[in-house]
């Protein structure tokens, strides 16, 4: 049975990723990146990882992509010589065409309640989470230092 979510998500993933790297104007490339994240969220949702799908949308489409867009308001948007919109559309269309003829569906495991994820994240892997958050804090402080005005 053809899984429409798999078709659309896979096409968005491949087409968005290709366009993100190949777009002539990086602003449009960031929109391709957003399309990739939406496709990845669709794949996560199709595999039953609803928390990860929501997180992908909130954190990456709503956070990382917004950061990129804000960065372009402070500096000229980079432009590369050749764009690859055609290649990106071809990647997405090819994915759709291939998957349309295959009897595929997404792998479905046992649904994971958010409480179990929270217990694993803040219990067993709390130290790994703390280290990752410390790394995030260090990155933010480093970025602030780099961009502080008045530095020589």
């Amino acid at each position: 049975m053809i899984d429409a979510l798999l078709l659309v998500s896979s096409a968005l993933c491949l087409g968005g990723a290709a366009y993100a790297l190949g777009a002539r104007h990086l602003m449009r490339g960031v929109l391709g990146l957003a399309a990739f994240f939406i496709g990845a969220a669709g794949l996560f949702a199709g595999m039953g990882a609803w928390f990860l799908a929501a997180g992908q949308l909130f954190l990456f489409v709503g956070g990382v992509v917004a950061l990129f867009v804000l960065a372009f308001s402070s500096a000229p948007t980079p432009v590369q010589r050749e764009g690859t919109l055609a290649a990106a559309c071809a990647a997405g269309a090819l994915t759709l065409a291939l998957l349309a003829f295959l009897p595929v569906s997404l792998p479905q495991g046992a649904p994971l309640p958010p409480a179990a994820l929270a217990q694993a994240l803040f219990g067993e892997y709390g130290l790994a989470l703390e280290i990752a958050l410390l790394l995030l804090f260090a990155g933010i402080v480093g970025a602030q230092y780099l961009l502080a005005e008045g530095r020589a």
Partner: protein
Amino acid sequence: MTLPVVLGVSLAVFALGIYGVLAKRDILRIAIGGTLMLSAVTLLLVALAQALPQQGMATVQAFVLVVWAVEAVEAIVAIALFLYLARKGITDIDELRELKW
């Protein structure tokens, strides 16, 4: 047929990420390539975790969240570096030949 599809998508996105990191000369596109690589790995991990019991799935999803924190750090540092270098008029990463600018 289920896993090979996600495997193929992950592999293709990972290859695109490697291309972005190696072939592009713009800092933000390199960062996008790195982000694509990390996202491809998380997709594959979740797909492979479908065969695990609930505890294994919780482990994988917790690991994915930690990887996301690292991805966010990469994006933040890349954007800060891009803005800092843009102020100095440097846009091509090939111009960075010293540790201090």
